[in-house]
């Protein structure tokens, strides 16, 4: 989380050339293409991008929890060095929770409404660990305490609907942590929360990561959240990576016109605005994934688009040391 993190050099998660396809009313189309990234222990990778760009699909594929309409059409996912996509259902279930776990945006839909919080956590523990009921129950209370749930013994006996939004999110984080996973994927974990509760949950996530050294992927559309927690950032547009860099490189000198546009479009980013000021908006809207333009997908909205941009898709390449982008432009500042 900080510059001095506990990151080691071996990635615990390595994704290469991942393609995800959806069969819908508009025929089959790619929702995620050529996604490659890796995450190390103790590191937080943020994936940002606007609605529908494929963030959740990417996340779900890493747990093999894609909806029926979607399939993994190609690529490789290595978790702790093992080929996750080649595993059978049984092995996949062993890996979930034990190696990789997910925190969703809506805890109410992810938690079982008719099971007490403590029971849900204990059940997951017993699925992965050789332990008796009492030990599993004790572990449940322990992880609830770890996520700073007030009065954990009592909360363990409550149902999800009896908790406030913030406490539910804590319960879900506890559930994800129950079996000490090496990788946590959090999909918009604070989007549904008030800013005050969001601050607490972000504080908790940072805290836990420092203590436990998990590798973390945090998905969000909020650049403020990114700036608070990321070590490294991937910016997605229309199903593809368009930029990847360390948090400082990205915020200091964004390369891709889309990233630059996003940063200018966030209100309140400037020190103080006068009413009557204008924001630097990006014209137009994201094109539908089943009808992408031929060249660069951002070309219809890009002020720098050239004839080549309309014809050929730019490769994802290293523009500056450790700073990658998919754009035909060169780094004139380098």
């Amino acid at each position, binding site marked *: 989380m900080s510059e001095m993190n506990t990151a080691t050099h071996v990635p615990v998660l390595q994704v290469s050339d991942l393609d995800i396809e959806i069969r819908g009313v508009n025929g089959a189309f790619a929702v995620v293409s050529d996604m490659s990234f890796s995450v190390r222990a103790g590191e937080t990778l943020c994936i940002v991008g606007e609605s529908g760009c494929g963030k959740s699909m990417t996340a779900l594929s890493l747990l093999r929890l894609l909806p029926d309409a979607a399939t993994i059409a190609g690529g490789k996912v290595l978790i702790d060095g093992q080929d996750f996509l080649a595993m059978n259902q049984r092995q996949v279930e062993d890996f979930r929770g034990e190696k990789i776990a997910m925190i969703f945006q809506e805890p109410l839909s992810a938690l079982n409404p008719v099971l007490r919080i403590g029971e849900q956590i204990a059940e997951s523990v017993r699925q992965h660990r050789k332990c008796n009921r009492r030990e599993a129950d004790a572990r449940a209370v322990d992880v609830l305490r770890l996520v700073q*749930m007030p009065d954990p013994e009592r909360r363990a006996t409550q149902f999800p609907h009896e908790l406030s939004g913030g406490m539910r999110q*804590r319960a879900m984080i506890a559930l994800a942590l129950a079996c000490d996973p090496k990788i946590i994927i959090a999909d918009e974990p604070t989007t549904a929360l008030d800013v005050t509760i969001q601050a607490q949950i972000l504080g908790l996530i940072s805290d836990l990561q420092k203590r436990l050294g998990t590798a973390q992927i945090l998905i969000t559309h909020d650049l403020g959240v990114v700036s608070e927690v990321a070590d490294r950032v991937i910016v997605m547009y229309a199903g593809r990576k368009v930029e990847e860099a360390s948090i400082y490189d990205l915020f200091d000198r964004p390369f891709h016109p889309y990233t630059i546009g996003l940063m200018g479009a966030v209100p309140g980013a400037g020190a103080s605005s006068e009413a009557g000021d204008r924001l630097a908006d990006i014209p137009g809207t994201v094109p539908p994934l089943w009808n992408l333009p031929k060249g660069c997908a951002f070309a219809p909205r890009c002020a720098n688009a050239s004839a080549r941009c309309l014809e050929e898709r730019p490769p994802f390449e290293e523009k500056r040391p450790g700073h990658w982008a998919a754009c035909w432009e060169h780094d004139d500042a380098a």
Partner: protein
Amino acid sequence: MQPDRTPLLSVENLEVHFPIRSGVFQRQVGAVKAVDGVSFSLQRGETLSLVGESGCGKSTTGLALMGLVKPTGGRVQFDGQEIRGFNRAALKSYRRRMQIVFQDPFSSLNPRQRVKDIIRAPLDIHKVGTPAERETRVAELMERVGLRPDQADNFAHQFSGGQRQRIGIARALALNPDVIVCDEPVSALDVSVQAQILNLLSDLQRDLGVSYLSISHDLGVVEFISHRVAVMYLGKIVEIAPKTRIFAEPGHPYTELLMRSAPSRDPRKRHSFSATNDDIPSATKKPSGCPFHTRCPLVTAVCKTTEPALTAREGARWLPVTTAELLS
């Protein structure tokens, strides 16, 4: 633009209490004090933002002013005239001059209706102009909000979220209102599209002099759009002041908490957010005394029993005198 001084809208002690009923006879056993004595004024051409956590009564305040929920108490004056004394004609004119834009462009528009019919509806209802004039007005409005007039025959479901929000704004503008209540007008939109709509709202204010009562939970949006900000907590305004003051030196401990909670925009200036749980009490079970006392870092014994009153200090800034100050 400099707002002029006579308030266009003045709200005093607005109260909306919803009954809580229970039992076979649905007897009233209590009340949700959703809005509990809110006072503010709005100038011509001004934007006042209401901010605060979910459930603090922002939308209910807006709906009450629109006449969409019934206030249980308080006074509202529009253009110097008290609404209660309005006869039917005056009330009708008030309804024309106050409009609302909602958060969710997807649910607030009928997807089976043509865009031109949606935008024209207020003109039809208030019988403004001839059919031909209404047609021209619709085209003019579409252009004004950045829609192509040749899309007038399309259905709402054929538009993107940002375009639907433009349709909602065009409809709100149809009758040349003085005030538009904007309830989270951009929170369902992507950042890049959100900026387009915020710019549009800002341009409309500059060109038409319309006032906004804006409701938003996004402090970035609030900072961009407002002249003044009212911070609400459990149905009450705890601080109201010019935007620059609220952001630069929040006066109330709750305002401070809100400001401190907003993510930083600079990875080198990260907050060290506290991970401790801090639950928001609800409007049904309001704490005694100062309603913020269960979360306030400055709480004293008196705060738990005595509620502070909103008092003017330093001219344009209102905030409650803390009990600690009353004692000193």
